[in-house]
């Protein structure tokens, strides 16, 4: 079944390991050029030169053959919001007044920001829990670029970054997980506290502060000095595997003791998604998240994880407008969103 409109990146394919709980894995590396002041201190001419040099390096290493480079003008709103929703650029980057550039691979697994807080911030995303894939690709890009550029590095402090919080490996490794069962059984605090206890950071993906929508969480490392890249990754991977086990156990429990209630919630969500004429972004995310649980548990069979994960991106405000090719007010978006969702989830 081919849903109308909307192509999304390969990493959203939901074909990766443990996809029932883990949406994606990301490895991000921060690097700076040796003889240029850090972005916030550099002059516009430095910014431009950095962009040219990095762009050149990407071309010489073959990355431009399967990707494109976006200039400053193409990074303003609403394009910026679109990129943020797809996890290809950070809000700071989009909001920045510095001259910047962005490389995105065609399959959207790889993106590289030039002149964010550091001269280079690049990342690779993989589907499911898959650090080997994400890290080897990020390391390969790092090595290839390093053959063309001169990084700021010291044997004592490692890769030098504008903010000491990113020093050393310059690596931020993270996983995006879906934990609806742990939230329902109220074990989520305990589980996440375990991650925080060993120095990892946990934050809800959608929504501000304590208001997390859809029960999606991001777990990432906070320390970047004193451990090798692989040690850091192993720590997150271990915790992720524990969290996966807990979530699956909680899901089993729900299916055993509260099966009818779970099915009710899932099918009510599906009903609303198939019937609503107006859907806000927040409501859509909550409903789609419930649907995702239903699909992962095998309660809903006519829809697969990939379709659900695609929907999560395509209902976001900027993505919706880009997909429809129109600029819309909030009210118009809510209506068109509902239409798009209905058309995507038609009964087979």
């Amino acid at each position, binding site marked *: 079944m081919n849903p109308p409109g909307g192509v999304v990146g390969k990493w959203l394919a939901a074909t990766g390991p443990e996809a029932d709980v883990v949406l994606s894995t990301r490895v991000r590396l921060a690097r*700076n*050029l*040796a*003889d*240029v*002041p*850090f972005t*916030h*201190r550099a002059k516009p*001419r430095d910014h431009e*030169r950095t962009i*040219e*040099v990095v762009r*050149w*390096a990407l071309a010489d290493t073959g990355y431009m053959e399967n990707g494109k480079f976006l200039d400053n003008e193409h990074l303003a709103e609403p394009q910026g919001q679109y990129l943020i929703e797809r996890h290809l650029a950070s809000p700071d980057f989009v909001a920045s007044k510095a001259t910047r550039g962005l490389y995105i691979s065609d399959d959207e697994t790889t993106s590289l920001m030039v002149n964010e*807080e550091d001269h280079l911030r690049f990342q690779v995303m993989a589907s499911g829990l898959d650090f080997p894939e994400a890290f080897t690709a990020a*390391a390969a890009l*790092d090595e290839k670029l*390093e*053959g*063309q*550029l*001169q*990084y*700021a*590095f*010291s*044997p*004592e*402090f*490692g*890769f*030098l970054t*504008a*903010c*000491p*919080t990113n*020093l*050393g*490996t310059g*690596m931020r490794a993270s996983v995006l997980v879906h934990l609806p069962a742990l939230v329902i059984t109220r074990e989520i605090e305990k589980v996440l506290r375990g991650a925080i206890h060993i*120095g990892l950071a946990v934050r809800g993906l959608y929504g501000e502060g304590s208001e997390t929508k859809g029960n999606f969480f991001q777990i990432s490392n906070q*320390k*970047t*000095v*004193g*451990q*090798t*890249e692989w040690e850091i990754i192993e720590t997150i991977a271990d915790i992720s595997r524990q969290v996966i086990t807990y979530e699956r156990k909680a899901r089993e429990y729900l299916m055993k003791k509260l099966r009818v209630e779970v099915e009710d919630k899932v099918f009510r969500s599906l009903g609303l998604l198939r019937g609503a004429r107006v859907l806000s972004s927040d409501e859509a995310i909550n409903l789609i998240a419930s649907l995702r649980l239903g699909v992962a548990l095998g309660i809903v069979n006519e829809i697969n994880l990939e379709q659900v994960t695609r929907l999560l991106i395509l209902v976001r405000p900027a993505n919706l407008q880009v997909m429809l090719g129109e600029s819309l007010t909030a009210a118009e978006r809510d209506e068109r969103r509902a239409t798009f969702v209905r058309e995507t989830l038609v009964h087979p």
Partner: protein
Amino acid sequence: MKVCDLCGKGEATMKVSQLDKEGKVTEIAVCAECARQRGFAEVEKLKANAAEILTELKTRIDEADSRLVCRSCGLSYAEFKRLGRLGCSDCYVSFHDELLPLIRRIHDAVQHVGRSASGGRKQAQMKMNVQRLREALSGAIQDEDYEKAAALRDQLRRTEEE
């Protein structure tokens, strides 16, 4: 009336903490005259002074931090504390000692053990040189200094051929 512990005569009007030779803190009651002679401040005044002393200390630290400046980009350590970001790679040298405890606090470690940066020097240098020459060439053309532009163009060609 409580009698002064020091002179045994005057009325004790204030308490003063003293550190004796063994490092023990004791409190004695003294009269105004003895206090004045020995330069003891009233405990109350001392508390107010403590606040002033801390402010004074902070100002001195900030001043010292403002004077500590990166040899390359000119960022002061005080500015770094305000912005949370360093100015360039050399800041890590200029502020090395000040940064160590901060790095330890953030990462529980101060020695990098991960991957290292290795080569790319020659390529990188070449790219930077070419970029600079291109900029100079474009500047010369804009200034209509065609002699200079021609010289730069030749230099550029030679560099790119390396």
